[in-house]
């Protein structure tokens, strides 16, 4: 990442942003990197390379907004989400989070400094079975965050748990039961209740409905949609199912091989995708209407983040590649349409001389 062509990377929540978010951003991610070392074999193994899971990712999420983070496996969407919440420590970059007492850079804080902030940012996990402790009752599971952070006790604690369970469509008599007594959809409701019980301002939901059956999935999507409105949640919604993303999100960020390739308001992205990868991704979704045929021509597979192609990571598969694409990595640039795209073929400055790293 020798050449940083982005306008600025200083700590400033009013920074002009490639996704054109308003200055009311609750979260600003700036040049986020997460690289995992690869070690050789043997006792004294040396580091032999890096898996560049996330590279130079920047975006803003404004208060009350739902941002979809989409991409295929290995695109870095989950790693980005986890690094934002500091479940993983970033290799570089900034994660500016507006708390009740000012803007902090989550990337720089120590574990101890992060603990009080955990009340304001929470995660909803994919698998409703493995994310709930089978030996804890629902009451214990949902009250645990409040107990750990000493936010409530006694009858007040119980009251908050009951009201949270009701919000997610469960009843107070469910409190003494254990996770195995619930269906997949109900378990996901319990997971959502646990995440929301502390009234966080930021929710990161990692594939929250992928493990559910279609008929139940719709219920949980409706629940998330209602809660978001009712509790004014700001959400980062990580998903591979584009139809769910289109239904729930205000803006969508598309990732490929660890980088953001396009970010745009939802309808614009789905109606007029700019990046050739976004176009291919949308074309690959099989439509449930047999009269809308699937037109799909993308060959090859997702780039290996341990051995990325030169220039634009997508160039070996791209139908529109030209010389520049193999040499220089495209930066995310704002288009007249309001979205941003990292593609030489779409760049408003396409005639500029080659800036080589």
């Amino acid at each position, binding site marked *: 990442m020798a050449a940083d062509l982005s306008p600025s990377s200083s700590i400033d929540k009013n920074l002009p942003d490639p996704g054109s978010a308003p200055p009311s951003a609750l979260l600003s991610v700036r040049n986020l990197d997460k690289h995992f070392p690869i070690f050789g074999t043997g006792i004294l193994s040396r580091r032999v390379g890096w898996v560049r899971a996330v590279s130079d990712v920047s975006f803003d999420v404004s208060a009350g907004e739902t941002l979809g983070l989409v991409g295929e496996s290995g695109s870095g969407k989950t790693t980005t989400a986890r690094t934002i919440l500091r479940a993983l420590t970033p290799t570089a970059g900034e994660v500016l989070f507006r708390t009740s007492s000012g803007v902090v850079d989550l990337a720089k804080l120590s574990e101890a400094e992060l603990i009080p902030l955990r009340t304001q940012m929470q995660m909803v996990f994919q698998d409703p079975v493995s994310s709930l402790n089978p030996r804890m009752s629902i009451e214990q599971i949902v009250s645990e965050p409040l107990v750990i952070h000493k936010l409530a006790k006694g009858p007040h604690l119980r009251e908050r748990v009951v009201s949270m369970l009701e919000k997610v469509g469960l009843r107070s008599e469910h409190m003494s039961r254990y996770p195995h007594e619930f269906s997949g959809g109900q378990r996901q409701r319990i997971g959502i209740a646990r995440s929301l019980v502390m009234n966080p301002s930021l929710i990161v939901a990692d594939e929250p409905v992928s493990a559910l059956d279609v008929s*139940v999935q719709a219920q949980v999507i409706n629940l998330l949609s209602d809660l978001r409105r009712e509790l004014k949640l700001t959400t980062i919604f990580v998903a591979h199912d584009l139809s769910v993303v*289109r239904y729930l999100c205000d803006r969508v960020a598309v990732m490929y091989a660890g980088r953001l390739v396009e970010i745009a308001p939802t309808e614009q992205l789905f109606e007029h995708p700019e990046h050739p990868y976004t176009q291919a991704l949308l074309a690959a979704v099989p439509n449930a209407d047999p009269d809308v045929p699937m037109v799909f021509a993308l060959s090859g597979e997702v780039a290996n983040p341990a051995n990325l192609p030169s220039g634009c990571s997508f160039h070996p598969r791209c139908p529109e590649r030209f010389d520049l694409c193999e040499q220089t990595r495209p930066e995310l640039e704002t288009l007249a349409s309001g979205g941003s795209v990292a593609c030489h073929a779409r760049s408003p400055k396409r005639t500029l001389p080659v800036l080589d790293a």
Partner: protein
Amino acid sequence: MVATNHDLILDVKDLKVSFFVDGSELKAVDGASFQVRRGRVLAVVGESGCGKSVSAYSILRLVKRPGRIVGGQIVLHPKSGPSIDITALQEDAESLYALRGGRIGMIFQEPMTALSPVHTIGNQLSEAIALHRPLGQAAIEAEAISLLTKVGIAGPAQALKKYPHELSGGMRQRVVIAIALANSPELLVADEPTTALDVTLQAQILGLLKSLKQNEDLSVLLITHDLGVVAQTADDIVLMYLGRVVESGPLRKVLKAPKHPYTRGLLDSIPSRSVRGKPLPSITGSVPSLKEIPSGCPFHPRCPYAVPGRCDQGSAPQLSDFDAEQRVACLRVGEI
């Protein structure tokens, strides 16, 4: 369905498969009937626990204890030779082994578990060929290379020497398909063949299956929960709920004019069909456990059209002809 034996390749009649656990009988498939027509793709669709995979496994007699086929028939009508009732074959009959991987090929869901991690691709492909055809080493290798070429693997000779972990997910699934095709089967049973794959790979594999169907003169039984995949690949569709077929017919007819409330509910819950901001139509409740299958119509507790005293009593409604092609199992079929 008006189809003569000549049109049919597989006829599943009133199939019943139960699992015997802790002294009770769980009816995973409870009287399912469907037919695969020659040269066509039949999709069997449903949510978890509907019995779609158990039905597929029954066709190859792969249902393991404590599960057992307790009733019905599965009849294969090969292009040449007499029809075979698969349910009547002995567990260790030569004729059963000849079917598996011979006349019937199977594609499994998870390519990483379907392939052996300690054998090379060449090893596994050769085994599939040699089990059914007495060929020499060189002929087997030539056959393996031509199979890998057929499923779109570049550099097939090199791929033969590789182990599954050296291949990407999409390549592994192509190998699984090559093994299923090893002995030019007439029927291909594909159990969620693209569920473990990303959308762009899924699109590639679905395209491959389509072209194979045409070029190899295959009939396909496709098991899936994804109505998008169904709409893009199938010719006919069967919907299952709690071990029973609730609706069947030609793809377009069923998707454009679904007759069963469950089919309607499933189609409505697909987010892409809905307008953003409006609540997504959903089916209330969740699929009940096989231990507590509701009386009467098994779908009645979740059905918006259920009539108390009628839908919740007696035995489950039978699948009956709605017209010449479409069949529905609903008591209120003409009324709703």
